[in-house]
């Protein structure tokens, strides 16, 4: 794959004792045949506008990084305010601002070149109005040869313009997946929405249509925050997707239900802020774990902190690898 693992556990070489103790723990994960040095994946929409910040997330410890979603044509996104910390999480309606698939391809090329020596896989993210538009954007982005392409069929913040997200309907989700599968032979992830009572049906349909893996979940909602003194919703888009701590129980349930029903790997994303949250997501069945809002609370230090906490918790509980507890919560 043109991919080579980093020398492992460089940080543990100060004493023999520490090396012996910590090196028993293997944090690596296998995502559709691609080895991640650890399960943490920078989620789409966080930092991912340019190659330099993606590389910075990788240097900060991410096991894989996802670029911001792009569409065939450039988009300005929604006007400000676009993001708000409402106390128990974030609410955002950035509105899929992006420079368009052609420019994104160049950003992805630069990112891939810099990420390869770090051994950190790159996930591109694509969205569109229609299966045909998805395909055209995927074809452009694929020229950058990212390790994965993720189809964002679940953004809740552009409904007035795009109509109901494809991810709310199993058939619509399958149509997009199938269309892209027809033009793209690489590893294909599909990002699902928690805002449907049928997430398991959607997951089954998307898997049957040829997805290699799933990302679950996109933001919850849409929700609304009203400023009582301003007497109106804060977000310029009025509504936005909810992420952070408030999303986690929903995300964990979705991952649990999906991994009961389908065999393809899932990147469990939603409110993972600590090592314990990451372990919870993996116990629900996730192969890897998306990191988004944690970057708001901790900056780039989020990756190192969550990994250190996960490693410590694994040691405490006597696990040496993620496989030893992946999906173990299923009863």
């Amino acid at each position, binding site marked *: 794959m043109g991919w080579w693992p980093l020398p492992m556990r460089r940080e543990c070489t100060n004493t023999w004792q520490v090396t012996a103790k910590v090196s028993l723990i293997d944090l690596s994960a296998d995502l559709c045949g691609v080895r991640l040095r650890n399960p943490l994946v920078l989620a789409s*929409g*966080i*930092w*991912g*506008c*340019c*190659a*330099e*910040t993606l*590389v*910075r997330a990788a240097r900060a410890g991410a096991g894989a990084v996802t670029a*911001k979603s792009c569409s065939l044509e450039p988009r300005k*996104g929604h*006007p*400000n*305010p*676009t*993001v*708000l*910390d*409402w*106390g128990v999480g*974030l609410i*955002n309606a*950035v509105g899929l*601002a992006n420079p368009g698939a052609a420019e994104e391809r160049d950003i992805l090329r*630069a990112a891939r070149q810099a990420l390869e020596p770090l051994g950190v896989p790159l996930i591109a993210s694509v969205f569109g109005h229609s299966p045909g538009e998805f395909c055209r954007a995927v074809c452009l982005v694929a020229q950058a040869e990212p390790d994965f392409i993720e189809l964002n069929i679940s953004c809740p913040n552009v409904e007035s313009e795009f109509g109901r997200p494809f991810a709310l309907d199993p058939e619509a989700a399958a149509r997009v997946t199938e269309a892209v599968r027809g033009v793209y032979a690489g590893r294909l992830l599909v990002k699902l929405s928690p805002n449907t009572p049928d997430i398991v049906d959607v997951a089954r349909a998307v898997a049957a249509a040829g997805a290699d893996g799933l990302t679950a979940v996109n933001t919850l909602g849409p929700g609304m925050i009203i*400023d009582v*003194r*301003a*007497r*109106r919703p*804060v977000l*310029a888009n009025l509504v936005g997707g909810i992420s952070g701590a408030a999303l986690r129980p929903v995300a964990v349930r979705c991952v649990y239900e999906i991994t009961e029903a389908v065999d393809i790997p899932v990147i469990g994303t939603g409110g993972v802020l600590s090592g314990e949250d990451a372990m919870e997501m993996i116990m629900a069945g996730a192969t890897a774990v998306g990191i*988004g*809002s944690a*970057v*708001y609370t901790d*900056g780039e230090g989020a990756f190192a902190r969550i990994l250190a906490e996960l490693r410590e918790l694994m040691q405490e509980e006597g696990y040496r690898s993620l496989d030893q507890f992946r999906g173990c919560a299923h009863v």
Partner: protein
Amino acid sequence: MSRQPHHAHRACRVNRVVCEGRVGVTLILDGTMPAHPGQFVMVWLPGIGERPFSLMDDDPASLTVARVGPFTSALCELQPGDRLWLRGPYGKGYELAGRRHLLVGGGCGAVPLALLAKLARSQGNEVIAALGARTADLLMLRWRFEALGCQLIVATEDGSLGYNGTVVAAVQELFDDRWPEAVYVCGPEPMLRAVAIQAGAVGLPCWVSMERAMKCGMGICGTCHFGDRLVCRDGPVFEGREMLATCLGASGSTM
């Protein structure tokens, strides 16, 4: 009483409006906004928009705004008693070093330097504020630096007031005399680079404040990236040599 978390918007009222020449206004608000000089707030006008602004003062919270577009025009039309909403403060501010500070501001770059001057003067430090603009009526906040007891150098590119030329040229003599112990800059990027190079050449610590369009303002969206730095969270104030190094390493889109 308030359920609002730290980073939600806070409603503030305009107490007083000070005219800033032809360019804009200073809005003196009720209440305080404790902040390090150089930090910024996101200012929200419901139904109009939200933009980042440096604090000109933290007690009382004050904003100085140049009229450049629809949002700043709306801010400039606010009257005493009107409300606006702030969240923040965000970002990394200036660090005070030494006892003799040279502040170099271009246009509305004077704004964060005014709060820095207040802090430096409160510690009894000497401050020279060098303010530059294209013409005299585009200069901002001279009154503020004077009131704080700063020595003022004014430069206009058309020679309508003070030194005839750029503020960068106007302060060269101070560097030659080794007067400053630290240099603080805010203004257009070519000016930031020029002063950072001037300061670097004589081994002086230098901090520059950068500007970028922002969405979240709190380090998530990446809109304000400058190389691999985020202006909202790693900045807006950077060490001069960090900025110069990032400029060299940055992609074409950010230069």
